[in-house]
Every structure is written in structure tokens, then in C-alpha cells.
């Protein structure tokens, strides 16, 4: 629609602005503050310039965490996106089963994240969990608290279990919006199932898919609770992703300086990705004619 120019709209925005500013700007200022200061203790601070940043850039610990994080995010994306699309293609389109599937599929999305962690913590245990017990009975040596590969496998499967439905639901909504005529034309053109997917379905859900990819990448980049509950970041620090490391630093060790510098860098990365996200979204909106 044609929007009119009206500066008084700011009054309508004001409550949101105040609330989010309070929630975001003030804390961020605190973080920036800490990132450029150091302390002797007893709440006495002195200017430290960019020291913390330099230290962080040189810190092996930070790069390790970043590396793990990128590996994690890439792996889960590589699994969740195709799997989500595949599930969406198989979902019933209408009727009783359609609603039932929707409800059952959405269930993992609404479980508090710590409970997700608890479920898999239990599920993977050899003594009391179905998965652990079965794997042990098959002779597989599976111990997620002590074995690096088992820990990674568990954390990944848990995330796939948790979030694939989001991708599937987004893709499903995209598929629903394709008019029947396209499928009919494809039949008349004697197109194979794969061609129907490649030339009709995939292009038409590309918009929603981009959003799914960006959302999942970013949310996985911030992951904290679920892996923390299951592995605590272990064994050692093999599953210590960025947020877990940061919280350890800030709330665990109270290393305010490094934590703050880390936070700023983390936040900047997120900002960059948000910008990409925003651009993609507005371009898609433009293409759809808004």
C-alpha cells in the first residue's frame, strides 16, 4: 500500500522505543564500558583502551570456541534444511491428519530449552535412557559425557530433533501457497517428480527457505541451554560453543573485561548477519510486490 508521510507516527512508536532502549541500549553501554576498562578489584576501574580486544583476538580459547561454533552451525544447517524440506514435501495438505501432524510436529518447538536438554540427557544415558541402552546393547561404546564424538553426535541430533520442525513448517507454508495450476501444468508437460521439485516447488519456496536458513544459522550461533544441560560444555571444552564460553567468562569467572570484549565481537557478528537477513527480507518483499 502507499504509505503516507507522517512524523507523528513517532508517538505510536515511542513505547516500543523506550522499552527496547531500556532493555538493550543501557545494558550494551555497560558492556562497552567494561570492555574498555580494567579493575584492581573493589569496583575501581581504569581505562584499558583496546587491550581486552587485542587479548581476545589473540586468545586461542576464543578462536577455538568460534571454530566449534561455526562447525556446529554448519553441520546442523546441512542436516536440518534438506530434512525440513523433505518432511514438508511429505506432509498431508488438508484434513484431520494435516492438523494432527502440525500439532505433533510443533511440540518440540514449545518445550523449554532446559527440558529439551534434560530429555536428551536422560535419553542418551546408558543406564536409564532408551537410546543409550539400545546402543550399548548393540555393542556400540556410547558415552556422551566422556567421548568427544558421542558428545557432538548427541548435541547435533538433539538440535535436529528440536528445530527441524521449524524449517519444515516454514517450507510447508511456502508449499501451500503454490497454486494448483502449476502442478497441473507440470503433469500436462509430463515432468518427473524431481523436475516438479526443482522447477516449481524449490523456486517458489526460496523466499521462506532463505528466512529459515538465516534464522537457524543465527539461533544456532547463540545456542546455550540445550548443550549446557546435556554436556555442560564437555567433555573438557569440546562442546563449549560461543555463548557457553561467554557465560562461563562473565557469570562464572566474572572476567568482566574479556567477557565484555567478547560480547562486543559476538554482537557485531550477529549485527552483520542481521543486516544480510534484513536485506534479503526486504528484497523478497519487493519481489512479491509490497
Amino acid at each position, binding site marked *: 500500500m502507499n504509505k503516507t508521510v507522517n512524523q507523528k507516527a513517532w508517538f505510536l512508536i515511542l*513505547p516500543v522505543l523506550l522499552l527496547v532502549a531500556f532493555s538493550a541500549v543501557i545494558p550494551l553501554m555497560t558492556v562497552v564500558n567494561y570492555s574498555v576498562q580494567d579493575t584492581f578489584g573493589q569496583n575501581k576501574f581504569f581505562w584499558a583502551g583496546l587491550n581486552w580486544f587485542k587479548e581476545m583476538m589473540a586468545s586461542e580459547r576464543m578462536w577455538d570456541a568460534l571454530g566449534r561454533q561455526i562447525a556446529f552451525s554448519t553441520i546442523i544447517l546441512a542436516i536440518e534444511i534438506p530434512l525440513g524440506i523433505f518432511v514438508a514435501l511429505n506432509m498431508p*495438505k488438508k484434513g484431520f491428519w494435516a492438523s494432527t501432524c*502440525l500439532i505433533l510436529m510443533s511440540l518440540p518447538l514449545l518445550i523449554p530449552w532446559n527440558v529439551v536438554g534434560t*530429555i536428551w540427557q536422560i535419553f542418551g544415558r546408558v543406564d536409564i535412557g532408551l537410546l543409550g541402552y539400545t546402543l550399548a546393547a548393540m555393542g556400540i561404546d556410547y558415552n556422551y559425557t566422556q567421548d568427544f564424538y558421542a558428545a557432538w553426535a548427541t548435541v547435533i541430533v538433539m538440535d535436529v530433533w528440536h528445530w527441524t520442525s521449524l524449517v519444515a513448517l516454514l517450507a510447508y507454508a511456502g508449499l501451500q501457497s503454490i497454486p494448483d495450476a502449476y502442478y497441473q501444468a507440470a503433469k500436462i508437460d509430463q515432468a518427473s517428480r524431481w523436475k516438479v521439485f526443482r522447477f516449481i516447488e524449490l523456486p517458489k519456496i526460496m523466499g*521462506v527457505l532463505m528466512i529459515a536458513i538465516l534464522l537457524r544459522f543465527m539461533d544456532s550461533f547463540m545456542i546455550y541451554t540445550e548443550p549446557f544441560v546435556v554436556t555442560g560444555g564437555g567433555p573438557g571444552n569440546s562442546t563449549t560453543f560461543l555463548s557457553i564460553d561467554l*557465560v562461563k567468562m562473565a557469570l562464572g569467572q566474572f572476567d568482566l573485561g574479556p567477557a565484555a570484549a567478547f560480547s562486543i565481537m559476538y554482537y557485531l557478528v550477529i549485527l552483520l548477519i542481521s543486516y544480510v537477513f534484513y536485506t534479503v527480507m526486504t528484497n523478497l518483499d519487493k519481489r512479491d510486490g509490497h
Partner: protein
Amino acid sequence: MSDFTNTATKRGFALPKIKGNAIVMGLYLLFLLLPIYWLLNMSLKNNSEILNSFTLWPQDLTFDNYITILTDPSWYMGYVNSMIYVVMNMVISLVVALPAAYAFSRYTFLGDKHLFFWLLTNRMAPPAVFALPFFQLYSSVGLFDTHIAVALAHALFNVPLAVWILEGFMRGVPKEIDETAYIDGYSFPRFFLRIFTPLVASGIGVTAFFLFMFSWVELLLSRTLTSVNAKPIAATMTRTVGAAGIDWGVLAAAGVLTIIPGALVIYFVRNYIAKGFALGRV
């Protein structure tokens, strides 16, 4: 004559199907539900059965774990606290987001695109970055360990989400409706409440669903900002290491109970979820 055997099965337009899509859905749903079933299974056993034997369903069905939770204030208050701040957050977020989304959908003004982008970045803000600052901020204004603190903290990412989703729905309502209302003599507040809001009711429903979802599931901030009075169930659950080790039965029961509100909410908004996902604004 001719072969009518297909008549009964092929009604309506024939869409392309992947053979065995029922199998795929069945396997996927099994994958999703099995761990949840396991949790339920464990919640209905007592600890000795859990630790000493491995059974696929409870041999000694017991509701003791649930009774423990429902009678022990340190447990059930967790749920109550969580519900309180989630509902508070939903109300606050909706109240501030509705006018803002309206403004974004209808007007252009100085800095509107930048403002929208800035809001979006808050949706993407890593809670880990804000954990410590929030802790200090809310402590300093004396709101530590209150429900309102958690509700406001969650507003950080929920309000942008609400504005974003609502704006998408409001775009679909033509401006002509606003103009007709003004011609008919409605004042802005009256128009907004009595005409506009009902038109975006499904959008509000979808928004409320996502607001609930993201506030209910969050742990880090809700645990950091509370200790005793407003302790959410998530925090209670992550601190249940007693002297005898983890009380698995009660833990499982607590977990099951956290799934129920979510299931109910999905059920009530199931018809609107598809539309919300279709806008791609999750």
C-alpha cells in the same frame, strides 16, 4: 462396460505425491515423539524401578512424582512463576507492539527503515551477551528476583518479534478502512480498538503464540534474573541435584508438566499457525 474401480478413490484434483509419504511422516513423528514418550515413561515410574530395571513402559505405574510436584511449593511455584512472567511479557509486548506495528504499516517517517532494522537486531541479540548486564541493571533498580524483571528482559527480543509479525498482518488491511472510519467520525483510539483490532485478530493470535513460545522456553535470562521469589520452573529443574543424586522420576514429571501448556497453546492456535509461518516472520 467400463472400469469404475478407481472412482471411489480418485476424487478431486490429483496432486503429485511421493510414494510412501505416510511412511516418511510416520518415521519423522516417531523420531519426534519417542524421546517425549520416554520422558513420560520415566515420570510414571518410581526411582527404584528407574535405576534398577530397564522397562519400556512402567511396570509399577505410579503418579507419586506428579503428586510430589503438585504438592511441593518449591516445585509448583516454579510453574506459577513462569506462567506469571510469560503472561506479563505477552501483555506488555502486545500493548506496545500494536501501535508501533500500525505506524510501520501505514506511515513513512524520518528514520523508519533504520528503526525497523534496529528492532530486528534485538530479536537477534544473543542472550549470553545480555546476561551479566541485565543482572547488574535490574539489581541496581531493585528489580532483581521479580517477575516484571524477567518479563521486561524477554521484551528485548519479543517486542521486535511482535512488531515484525503484526506489521506483516496489518499490511494486509487496506488503508481505505482507516479512511472510511475517520470519515464516519471515529476518533483514532476508538477506531483502533473497535474496527482495526478485530480485523487483525488472527495476527494477534499468531503473535501471542510466538510471544508465549519464546518467553516460555527461555532459560538463561530467566534464571540469571531470579533467585527465590520469581524462580521459574526451568531454574528449579536445573538445580535438582539432591544428596541422593538426581531424582529422575520427579525431574521427568516436571519436564512433562512443562510440555502441557505448550501443547495446549498449539492446539488453540493451530488454524492460525500456518498463516504466521507463511509470512515467514518467525
